[in-house]
């Protein structure tokens, strides 16, 4: 009976054109569009060093800002080509489009740009980061001063240590937005995989919906049969998971072989993350199928809308969104399954350690268990108040 149900569940999925489109064809189409849209930007982005000017208000002005800008690297190259000017000179350079913007080391730090573009966005982002962290540092100093009884050598040493620490942390923070990490294409493809994993929930949703007596006519028919409900649901979910994995394998095959996307070398970890990601998608689908009491099309719409929202927040429609969420509402990315998947791939690609990767894998598992726990009451129910 188990194989009978599994076989027919697979058959049902692969013959449903709507399901096939959303879970198989749509990611391939989107992947192709991403490649067409972002590959040129990526090439330009990798080669470009951003010309800027820094305006010191006095020759002996002491600021860490130029040092920070000089430290930022674009691979082996410097991220910024810095020239030191007076304000008039900087203005002229900007008018002549020889620089993309200039910084005035005033109090507070002032950035002047003339146009909108990627270089200006990067420049603005770095400046904002510096200003924000500087503010934090000032607060630290003020706090220390208020705590200190006397401004002795120990006090200055303590402040010095904290500033050094801040500089190091600041360096790390700024490195995170260096050019390597601004790989548009890779982030887009990570979110694409996340989207495919979560869209897979539609498959689980469809099958489980067909098994519940209070949700569909087929569910009523299955419920009055002598086959245990749990067995039917598990085999249906397994079939959904199988179809999901076939879909994601197809996406990897297509993007690697035809779009020449390099997902890195940690193939086993990539497989593990994909398996867990698909499981999260399946759990999401099962939860929506069993908890929401509405028609199947609406439920499918809920999965699609939820997935798109998650992918949007994790950077699918623009990498800036991921940073905005990370910076302002970090908890959102901690509970967003698309962010967990995206960040898992991101950490595999950019870091040598696996701490962040496993954090995301475990977060996805917790998300999946939570979804299944929400579903369990409805799934276990055998008689209903109304159908």
């Amino acid at each position: 009976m188990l194989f009978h149900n599994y076989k027919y569940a697979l058959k049902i999925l692969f013959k449903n054109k709507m399901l096939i489109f959303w879970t198989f064809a749509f990611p391939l189409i989107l992947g192709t569009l991403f490649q067409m849209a972002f590959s040129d930007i990526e090439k330009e982005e990798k080669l470009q060093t951003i010309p800027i000017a820094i305006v010191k208000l006095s020759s002996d002005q002491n600021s860490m800002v130029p040092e920070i800008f000089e430290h930022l690297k674009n691979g082996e190259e410097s991220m910024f080509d810095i020239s030191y000017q007076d304000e008039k000179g900087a203005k002229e350079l900007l008018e002549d489009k020889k620089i993309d913007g200039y910084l005035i080391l005033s109090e507070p730090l002032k950035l002047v740009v003339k146009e909108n573009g990627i270089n200006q966005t990067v420049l603005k982002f770095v400046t904002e980061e510096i200003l924000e962290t500087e503010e934090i540092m000032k607060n630290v100093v003020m706090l220390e001063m208020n705590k200190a009884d006397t401004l002795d050598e120990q006090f200055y040493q303590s402040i010095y240590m904290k500033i050094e620490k801040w500089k190091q942390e600041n360096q790390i923070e700024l490195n995170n937005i260096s050019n390597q990490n601004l790989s548009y294409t890779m982030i887009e493809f990570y979110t694409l995989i996340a989207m495919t994993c979560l869209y897979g929930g539609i498959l689980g949703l469809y099958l489980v919906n067909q098994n519940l007596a209070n949700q569909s006519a087929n569910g009523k028919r299955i419920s009055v049969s002598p086959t245990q409900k749990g067995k039917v649901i598990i085999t249906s979910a397994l079939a959904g998971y199988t179809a999901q994995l076939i879909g994601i394998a197809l996406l990897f095959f297509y993007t690697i072989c035809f779009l020449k996307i390099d997902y890195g070398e940690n193939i086993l970890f990539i497989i593990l993350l994909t398996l867990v990601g698909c499981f999260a998608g399946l759990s999401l689908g099962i939860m929506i199928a069993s908890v929401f009491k509405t028609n199947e099309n609406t439920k499918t719409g809920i999965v699609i809308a939820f997935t798109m929202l998650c992918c949007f927040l994790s950077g699918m429609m623009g990498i800036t969104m991921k940073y905005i969420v990370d910076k302002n509402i970090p908890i959102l990315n901690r509970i967003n399954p698309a962010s967990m998947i995206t960040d898992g791939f991101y950490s595999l690609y950019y870091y040598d350690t696996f701490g962040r990767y496993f954090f995301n894998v475990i977060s996805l598992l917790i998300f999946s268990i939570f979804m299944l726990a929400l579903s369990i009451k409805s799934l276990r129910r055998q008689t209903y108040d109304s159908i």
Partner: protein
Amino acid sequence: MKNIIEVKNLTKEYKNLKAIDDLSFEVHEGEILGLLGPNGSGKSTTINCILSLLKFEKGTIQIFGRPMAPNAYDTKREIGVVFQDVAVFEELTVEENIDYFCGLYVNDKSLRKQYVTDAIELVGLNEFKKFYPKQLSGGLLRRLNIACGIAHKPKLIFLDEPTVAVDPQSRNNILDGIEQLREKGATIIYTTHYMEEVEILCDRVIILDKGKVIASGSPEELKELANMEEKVSVEIETITEKQLEEIKKLKNVDEVHYHNQNLIVIYKKGKNNLITLIDYLGKERVLYDKIYSERPTLNDVFLELTGKELRD
């Protein structure tokens, strides 16, 4: 006679509404029991309670002498259900659908193959077995719905309004199929609001209204509850008031109505009332076109008992 189903004091409430009100009845082995009632009378709710799909507040249900429960798998194995809503997979062909649902009851692949062939034969879908549901007409779809419910050759079959919105050809095919199932020994519970089907098929009828049994018995026994024996309708262009009065005085006549050139004469009892009326019309030289004689229907019984039509 052996009872296949025993329902005692079944009560089902939806908030403040009593959908089934202290309902008790039995179904005997080998019979076709009709559950007749208007929409919302509690027919489908009764079936869903018997099948343990719905919770109920009070009462007991036994099938094959065993208490019915969601996990009474041995009992469920002997039951076939055809729900009012068509329950098939759009992605599977006629043959695959029947095989899938039959597979929930029958593990043996070769036996199942035979059962599927028999079911297709029974509902007359041989030509359509490779068709997908959306390629079938409403009537053929209903036939597929039936085949999916009975392919495993159950001893007890629930048919919940299986002929709703089907063409006459499919309806006849479905009714023939049900007769065949009975001949093979199945016990059938048939819910409908089509009284003609009940009269053709059912050995016994339970008439439900507002979740209560308002009458039960064989169709003939029930018809005796109607307060008339015969109704004659005659299409007449003109008739005088005096003639109407005289018709009223004819033997056995209870009521006379003339409306829209249609004379209706209701007789309390007796046979051969039609001849008396034709004789009178001939003698009075009243010209008439068509003339019909009808016996009371279950609808008349329902009207008599509740004051409303079955299809209200």
